[in-house]
């Protein structure tokens, strides 16, 4: 039943490896169902009628700026807040009457919330002790997770004798040792420095894969969400804007908000001129040309749309292409950022609009051919342009 997803993922022997996408499988039963959940604090609506299905073994991210309601949603999953409206079902069972200490769900706190008067071992053993697990089994399971997070040398230390990264591991071990049906992580890497964070992201993914526990992570860091997640829910003002895989979210954002929040993007405003096959022709005064989009839904002529093009999908050249009327921006190089592997060009179009293009520096040159105040032409493949309606 719910294990079929795992089976699919592990069957790497089959030549055409099927992708593990339980959310696209109508026979798959969701592990957690969030059904029309609303949370109000007085007049303030923190979570606004959210419905969401999360499947077993997913690494699911709630992504959004601070104050978007992602932490409130996580706290409702843990049981620290009760929904004002709606239901949360875990394996089909309504959780609304179940207090946090009876939910088969564990949380890793942003502050880690390690007990300062207990050492690493007793902190980790705390949860098992509450459940009355026999002592030898507690010892065995604690040793197991301590081994997993590589803290063997620090088992007898107290939290204040550990570094930030070590504390983070203790918190992770403590929330994993009870083998919860779902692990909730509230900004788990927020307090770590950048190098450690990148390294820990991969460790988290390995641990998630090893244990097979469903992870739900709250983060405001889009890079982190992109790295670790099977799917991401982008939130804004208590609502979910889009739920997709990282790649879908980046390549097919459904709104200007998502396109802008995930990575860098150039957005050009225009109006639909006509339809040509399954392409749209969009007239944009900002762009100063006609934009022929990739295959897209039919929109009535005259409708206002926004065209999103990622900087790395723009090709920058000094020579004008044969046809400059369609899918070609022209302007003056305003700024150049040389990052070594990449160069970032800020180009001021004739309309005054600034666009960004990035180029991989594949040739080994000290002097790049394009320099400040050059007149350049930006072109792109038609399917690089995404039509956004809001």
């Amino acid at each position, binding site marked *: 039943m719910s294990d079929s997803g795992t089976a699919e993922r592990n069957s790497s022997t089959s030549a055409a490896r099927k992708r593990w996408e339980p959310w696209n499988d109508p026979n798959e039963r969701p592990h957690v169902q969030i059904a029309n959940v609303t949370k109000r604090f007085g007049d303030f609506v923190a979570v606004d009628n959210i419905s969401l299905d999360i499947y077993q073994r997913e690494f699911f991210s709630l992504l959004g700026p601070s104050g978007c309601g992602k932490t409130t949603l996580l706290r409702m999953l843990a049981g620290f807040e009760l929904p004002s409206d709606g239901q949360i079902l875990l394996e089909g069972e309504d959780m609304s009457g179940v207090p946090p200490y009876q939910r088969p*769900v564990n949380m890793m706190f942003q*502050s880690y919330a390690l007990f300062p008067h207990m050492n690493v071992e007793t902190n980790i053993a705390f949860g098992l002790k509450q459940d009355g697990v026999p002592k030898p089994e507690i010892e065995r399971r604690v040793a197991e997770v301590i081994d997993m997070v590589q803290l063997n040398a620090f088992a007898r230390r107290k939290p204040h*004798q550990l570094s930030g990264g070590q504390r983070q591991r203790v918190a992770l071990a403590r*929330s994993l040792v009870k083998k919860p049906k779902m692990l909730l992580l509230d900004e788990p890497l927020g307090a770590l420095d950048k190098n450690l964070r990148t390294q820990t992201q991969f460790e988290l993914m390995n641990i998630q894969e090893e244990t097979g526990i469903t992870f739900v992570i709250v983060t405001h860091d889009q890079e982190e969400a992109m790295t670790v997640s099977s799917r991401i829910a982008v939130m804004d003002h208590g609502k979910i804007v889009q739920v997709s895989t990282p790649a879908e979210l980046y390549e097919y954002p459904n709104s200007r908000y998502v396109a802008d929040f995930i990575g860098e993007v150039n957005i050009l405003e225009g109006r639909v001129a006509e339809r040509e096959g399954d392409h749209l022709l969009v007239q944009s005064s900002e762009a100063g040309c006609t934009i022929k989009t990739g295959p897209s839904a039919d929109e009535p002529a005259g409708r206002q749309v926004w065209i999103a093009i990622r900087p790395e999908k723009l090709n920058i050249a000094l020579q004008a292409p044969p046809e400059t009327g369609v899918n070609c921006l022209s302007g003056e190089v305003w700024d150049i950022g040389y990052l070594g592997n990449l160069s970032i060009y800020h180009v001021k179009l004739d309309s005054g609009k600034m666009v960004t293009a990035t180029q991989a520096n594949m040739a080994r040159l000290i002097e790049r051919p394009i320099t400040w105040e050059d007149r350049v032409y930006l072109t792109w493949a038609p399917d690089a342009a995404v039509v956004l309606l809001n």
Partner: protein
Amino acid sequence: MPEPTEKTTPGAKIAYLAGGAASTGLIAGLHARLLLFPPYRLFVLALIRMGFSGRSLVIAVPYLWLLAFFLAPFLIVLKISLAEVVIAQPPYTPLFVFIEDGFIAIQASLDNYLFLMEDSLYWKSYLSSLRIAFISTGLTLLIGYPIAYGMIRAPKRWRFALLMMVILPFWTSFLIRVYAWIGILKKEGLLNLALMQLGIISEPLTILNTDIAVYIGIVYSYLPFMVLPLYANLEKMDLSLLEAAADLGCRPIKAFWVVTVPLSVPGIVAGCFLVFIPALGEFVIPDLLGGSQTLMIGKTLWSEFFNNRDWPLSSAVAVILLLVLVIPIVLFQRMQERSARAEA
């Protein structure tokens, strides 16, 4: 000697000159800040020229404080306790006596201490004081802990008002507050009146002039000394720890015992010391609220001093009282240091 790397401000240079006094700690910080004021700087420079190092100066300040306000008065009391009572001004024999030919004789006897052991009144008073102080400290903790805990769990906007309610009674005289309890506890007092009106009792209760009245008086008077350190300690506690405990399957009541209470031990210890020490030597409360059978060492000391005018004997009582207090505190601190070292 290495050159100081920072020479920008004269203060920094002098702080360096002052023997590189440890830059951590309250006193060292105070010292460093005071160095910015010219008179203090000149004073320190003069002492340095005389051969004192900055480090020893920093350490000397608290010792001087203890010497002036603790050790010196104690030595005076100790001196008097070794004397004999005389009808004179002051009413005891001097320790040093000038005799002929420029010789100085030391006149001291342990008679007073021996007398304390002979007469059962004194050790009974000590024991009774210890008992009363222990019980009332326990009662104060039992009442003070829920109050402090309630204060930190109350909405933030109420906290200041609640804190003021704890502190405000201090603004009235201690004596008046204890006197007020007489009016409440006496036979025809407010408490008996209220209980009889409610029909709970038919005969008025005798509370005033018993040990119970003393407990009530001590608990009431010293409650803020228990609540404030506990409040300060509990307020620092990260409430997400309780959420973490709940998340790991711990019920709220159990979480209180396994998380909140162990973390508040420093506050409990501080509060208990602050109540126990003055309660042990208390004399106003047993004098006003207690009965003739209420024995407390403070009361005994008072009557020895003012009624008998036996300064040497009352000084001996005070010295023993001090030892009764200081020895357990020192032992306790040793124990704590040892456990802290074992952890590190």
